[in-house]
């Protein structure tokens, strides 16, 4: 019981999700919202990989999705730790607050 949706509809959906995530990263100034936009983009790329793998009945698309998931997990942990450091130092989550380097 599998959907027989045309492949371009699935890829269009992945493109729409990616564009929404990209807009989220560019428009927002709060760094947590920018991280959320990056997560949306990673998820959209994962959708494209799984759709491509399912089209040929091969396992490689899902394997790529597992690697993307792993990378997203590592990136989110480090990214949120950096967010905590930013908030600890500047008392704001404005991405423009960290605009100067010392020395």
């Amino acid at each position, binding site marked *: *019981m*599998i*959907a*027989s*949706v*045309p*492949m*371009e*509809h*699935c*890829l*269009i*959906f992945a*493109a*729409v*999700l*990616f*564009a*929404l995530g*990209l*807009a989220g990263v*560019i*428009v*927002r100034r*709060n760094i*947590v*919202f920018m991280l*959320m*936009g990056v*997560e*949306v983009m990673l*998820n959209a790329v*994962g*959708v494209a990989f*799984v759709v491509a*793998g*399912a*089209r040929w*009945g*091969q*396992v*490689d698309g*899902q*394997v790529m*999705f*597992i690697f993307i*998931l792993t*990378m*997203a*997990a*590592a*990136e*989110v*942990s480090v990214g*949120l*730790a950096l*967010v*905590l*450091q930013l908030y*600890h130092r500047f008392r704001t989550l404005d991405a423009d607050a960290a605009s100067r380097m010392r020395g």
Partner: protein
Amino acid sequence: MNLFFYISAFVAAVSTFMVITRTNAVHALLYLIVSLLAVAFIFFSLGAPFVAALEVIIYAGAIMVLFVFVIMMLNLGAQAAEQESQWLSPGTWIGPSILTVVLAAELIYLFVADQARTSAAGVVGPRQIGFALFGPYVLGVELASMLLLAGLIGAYHLGRPHKH
């Protein structure tokens, strides 16, 4: 089952739009969790049940929960939501949104111009994925584990309270 895919895709797109337009961080995270669950439905309808389960367990269940915990720890309050709505003035989002819509239109045109292939050739289950991960992709698995180790050490070091 086709209708299942289209409904899930609509829910995912609408909730992702709500993610990027909310002023309260917790609301945006909840919409993002809904979007991830809808994408898991889509994976299931395409014959990829294993990554559907992984999407729910790892992405929505671990990564997003980590986000929620950190937001709760920061304890931002109503003043932060007020500032977010100030930052989201129309002058801010009109330009990037127009450019992003142009990019999305280009991508959609490219996909539409290439016609008539159905999207799923069968169910690809965990057994085949296991064979692939322990077979041709074993080097990738080792590299992924090294990446996770690096992420773990980095997150531990950066998350410690530093005395100034």
